[in-house]
C-alpha cells in the first residue's frame, strides 16, 4: 500500500516536473527541478541499480516531453541515484541499510532529511549546469546559474518532500 502510494505520488510529481519545465520557465538560465528529491526518496529496497534505471527513465521522459536537450536531465539524474546510498549513509548512518528501512523526516530528523535533499540537489544542479553550458560560458556565469538553480530547486524539493516522505502521507 505504501509503495503503490509512493509511486503514484512519484508519477504525479513527474507530471508536475513536466509542467514546470514546459510552462513555468522563470528564465532559461534558472533550472527548477524536483527530480533529485524524487530519486532520493525511492525506497532503499529498490537498490542502486534499480534506482539508476528509474532515474534514467525519468530523466529521458522529462527530456523528451519538455523540449529540452535529450539526455541532459538523465545525465544529471543518474549520478544522484548512484550516490543516493552514500548520501543516505553519510547523513542518516548505515543502520537504515541494515534494517532496510527508508528514512522518515519525523523519526530520522527533519534537518538530516533537508541535508540529504540539499546534497542530492547540489549534485544534480552541478552536473546539469555543467553539461548544459558545455564549457561555452565563463565560470562566474555558470557558478551564478548553479547557485540560483540550486537554491530555487532546493526550496521546491523541500515542499515536495512532504508528499514523498512516507510518514507524512499517513
Amino acid at each position, binding site marked *: 500500500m505504501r509503495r503503490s502510494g509512493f509511486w503514484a505520488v512519484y508519477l504525479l510529481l513527474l507530471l508536475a516536473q513536466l509542467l514546470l519545465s514546459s510552462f513555468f520557465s522563470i528564465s532559461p538560465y534558472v533550472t527548477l527541478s524536483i527530480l533529485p528529491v524524487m530519486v532520493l526518496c525511492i525506497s532503499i529496497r529498490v537498490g*542502486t*541499480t534499480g534506482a*539508476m*534505471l528509474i532515474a*534514467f527513465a525519468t*530523466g*529521458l521522459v522529462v*527530456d523528451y516531453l519538455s523540449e529540452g*536537450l*535529450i*539526455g*541532459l536531465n*538523465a*545525465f544529471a539524474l*543518474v*549520478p544522484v541515484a*548512484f550516490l543516493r546510498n552514500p548520501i543516505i549513509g553519510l547523513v542518516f548512518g548505515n543502520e537504515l541499510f541494515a534494517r532496510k528501512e527508508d528514512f522518515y523526516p519525523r523519526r530520522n530528523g527533519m534537518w538530516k532529511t533537508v541535508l540529504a535533499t540539499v546534497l542530492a540537489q547540489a549534485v544534480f544542479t552541478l552536473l546539469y549546469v555543467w*553539461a548544459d553550458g*558545455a*564549457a*561555452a560560458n565563463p565560470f562566474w556565469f555558470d557558478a551564478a546559474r548553479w547557485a540560483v538553480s540550486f537554491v530555487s530547486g532546493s526550496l521546491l524539493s523541500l515542499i515536495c518532500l512532504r508528499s514523498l516522505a512516507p510518514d507524512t502521507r499517513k
Partner: protein
Amino acid sequence: MRRRSWIPALINLAVFIALEAACVHFMFRNGELQKAWLAKGAHAVTGTFWGGVQSVTEFFSLRGTNRALAEENAALRAELERTRAMFREACIDTMKYHGASRGYEYIWAEAVRLSRNRQHNYIILNRGFEDGVKEKSGVITSCGVVGIVEAVSAHHSFAFSFMNSDISISARLGGEQGAVGPLVWDGRNSNKAVLKEIPLQYRFQPGDTVYTSGHSLLFPADIPLGVAGESRMVNGATNEIKVTLFQDFRSIRYVSIVHNKSLQEIEEGSL
C-alpha cells in the same frame, strides 16, 4: 565474503557508466553545443593518450636513436677531415709540395665502462679490431679529447682516459698561430686541465679557446678542448695556464675512435 561484497558495487558501477554513456550519446546527437564540447574533449583525451604512447615509444627508441646519431657523427667527422685534407692539399699544390696526409678514419663506439675516481682512469669501448679499431687511436667527442686506445680485443677496446696523470696531448692556445704546449689533466677535477710550456711573450686572454694542435699523431687539429683561465709563471721561463675542459667526463656515453691512417708510416720513418 569480501570478494562477493565487491560484485554488486562493480555491477552498479558498470550500470552507471553504461547509463551515463547513453546520456552522453543522446546529448552528442541532439545538442550542437554539446557535440562540439564532447568532440573537443574526445580530441583532447585522444591527443593526450597518443601523445603519451608516442613519448613512451620515443623513450624506448632513444638507445637506437643515439646509436644512429653517433654513427652519423663519426661519418660527418670523417667527411670533415677529408674536406680539410683536400683543402690543405689544394694549398700545398700551389707551393709545389707533394706531402702526404692520408687523413683519419673514424669509428663510433659506446663507452661500456669507465673509471673517474683514480689517478690512472680508463675507458672500455664496445668496439674491437673486428670493427676496425687499432691501438694508438684517439678517442674523442664533439666536446674534446677523451683518451687514447691502448689495447684492442676482438670486440672491445681499452683506452686510457685523459683523466690520467701520464697522458698529455698537444694543444694550441687561440687561433692557428697560437702557442702550442702539452695539455695534462690537473689530477683533481673531472673538467680541469693545465696547459704547460706556453712562452711568456705569448699574449692571451682568459676565455681563449684551447684546441688540439695537430702536432700529435693521434688527434686531428682544431678539436676544441676547453677555455683558458688563470695562469702562473713557472721557473721564470714559461706560463702554465689552467684550462676548463668542455668535455664532462661524468657524462660520456658515445665517442668516436679516430685513427691516423699515416701513423704506421710516420713511425717507421718512411716519410
